């Protein structure tokens, strides 16, 4: 278990401020945030690589705030895997055992065990420079886990991989986590990566925690405009709650009003995720939130199509490709835009 209590860290001109975080044993937690948010500094602080100015870091109940990195039982894997370039794969993997002076006879057994998990047996004699991205990552994970750390820290471990290898590595990371049940903190700026892997997500921005929650909470109930933007909610409108009727809370902007089933009494923003917006050619039988508008732009996103519809306001909608093709939409077509009050999240 990882606990951070009011942790403050200063690295050059960057500050981590009042970080309070609790990660249960065996959980896969993703720290999500834009570049420069302080994700790596947070990870390195947990590893003991930066001095904590104030606050406490507890690992499995043990206060490690002043403990040196080699005594924390934490392994870190960086973005580009940082394998020791002058050592072979085998020497890389057993590095942690050698510096701990493990007897040779035992090292062999541990090496065999970890090679079995990561399938790196055939790579042992090679130098890191000759490995592919996926192979490097497997070796880096093997090196990090052979010492059986209590906590695994992953700093953007998938960003150096091509799309195909990434898919493979999602599975690899999930499998490894399930097999070893190791508490894992994974840093990324990629929201989809976080959604695919995390038991819980910590959103961080400018050195502060913006929100902590399960992926669905972060996705459907962002706590701030920043989180809504960062999780690609796309439709964020500024206004306020002006009343309540049988359809729900009335949220008014300068130009229009929408209904929300939110329990909130006051709000500054209404957030509607692009995939929760319905687009139809015919007017739906009934809908609390209904607009008519013109298709302004069509962007092909692969499996989905992103439409911008000028009602006004401008709504962004993600349509599955199949539905889009069935509707044969073109720029300039008139369409209806509708969404449920339960899809309108108020902040």
């Amino acid at each position, binding site marked *: 278990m990882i606990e951070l209590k009011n942790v403050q860290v200063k690295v050059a001109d960057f500050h981590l401020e009042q970080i309070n975080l609790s990660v249960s044993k065996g959980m896969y937690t993703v720290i999500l945030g834009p570049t420069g948010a302080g994700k790596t500094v947070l990870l390195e602080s947990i590893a*003991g*690589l930066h001095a904590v100015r104030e606050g406490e870091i507890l690992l499995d109940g043990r206060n490690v705030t002043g403990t040196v990195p*080699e005594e924390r039982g934490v*392994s870190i*894997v960086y973005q580009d895997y940082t394998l*020791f370039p*002058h050592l072979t794969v085998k020497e890389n993997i057993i*590095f*942690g055992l050698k510096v701990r002076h493990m007897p040779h006879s035992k090292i062999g057994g541990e090496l065999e065990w970890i090679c079995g998990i990561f399938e790196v047996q055939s790579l042992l004699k090679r130098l890191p*420079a000759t490995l592919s991205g996926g192979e490097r990552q497997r070796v880096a994970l093997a090196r990090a886990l052979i010492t059986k750390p209590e906590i695994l820290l992953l700093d953007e471990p998938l960003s150096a991989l091509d799309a195909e290898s990434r898919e493979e590595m999602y599975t690899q990371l999930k499998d490894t986590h399930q097999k070893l049940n190791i508490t894992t903190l994974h840093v990324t700026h990629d929201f989809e990566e976080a959604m695919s892997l995390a038991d819980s997500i910590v959103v961080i921005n400018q050195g502060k925690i913006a929100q902590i929650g399960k992926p669905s909470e972060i996705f459907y109930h962002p706590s701030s405009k920043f989180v809504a933007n960062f999780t690609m909610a796309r439709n964020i409108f500024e206004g306020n709650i002006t009343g309540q009727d049988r359809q729900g809370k009335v949220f008014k902007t300068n130009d229009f009003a929408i209904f929300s089933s939110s329990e909130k009494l006051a709000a500054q923003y209404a957030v509607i995720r692009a995939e929760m917006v319905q687009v139809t050619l015919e007017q739906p039988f009934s809908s609390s939130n209904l607009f008519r508008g013109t298709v302004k732009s069509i962007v092909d996103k692969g499996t989905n199509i992103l439409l911008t519809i000028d009602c006004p306001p401008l709504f962004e909608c993600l349509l599955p490709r199949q539905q889009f093709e069935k509707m044969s939409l073109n720029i300039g077509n008139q369409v209806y835009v509708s969404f449920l009050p339960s899809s309108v999240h108020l902040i």
Partner: protein
Amino acid sequence: MEVIPKFIRTASSFLRRHRLLVGFGVLSLLIVLFVLVPLFKIVFLSNKEALWQSIQDITVLKSILLTLYAALITVVIGFALGVPLAFILARYNFPLKGVVEGLIDLPIVVPHTAAGIALLFVFGRDFLLGKWFNSIGVHFVDSLAGIIIAMLFVSVPFLINSAKDGFRKVDVRLENVARTLGASPWQVFRRVTFPLARRSIASGTLMMWARGISEFGAVIILTYYPMVTSILIYQRFESYGLTQAIPVAAILVIICALIFIGFRFFLQRDKKRD
């Protein structure tokens, strides 16, 4: 119509396409010749008989061995003291770091005779450290110790600067990973940082050693006798003229060239292995 031969057309097209390369190539050739011609002349124009006599001359041999030995001891001391400083300069920030870095370069820019005098003021029998060392039987005037401190003073910046650049090139995250894997700071230095910076350190060590061998100005102020080779060449030139000085100089140039080429070859092989 005049027909231009094909090779002239090809050459003219090459010159037009590679104007920068040709221009820089000519300038590079000039500086390479400037360095090589005097060295070749000293080796190949020296009288073979005189060269052979010099090789058998015990004074010359003693002097060359003394120079190589003193430069080697200097390198060992410089390595032990300079590499830790280079690591600190590469990895840590501290007040007045820029001043320290500037001071390290000072021996390169100060005239070496002035450096010799400065050392005399510290290590001379009647001064500061000299008095203390004198009391434990170590003398820096007209002694091997004097040669070593003179060589050390003028040559150690080469090792420190080269090692510092080498350490800076080592990704700090490799050291971080090693720490989290259980390595102590010393183990990280020994197993990761030093091996990865080894080429720069080796190159700096070679430069330091070479600079030590060739030192004249600072050594002559502290130690005329026993005579290092650079002083012996000067002494032969002053006493007997050019003909007696050339063979000694030629032997030193040949030895240095062999060691230098051998070392570079070794470094190149090490690079290829990675």
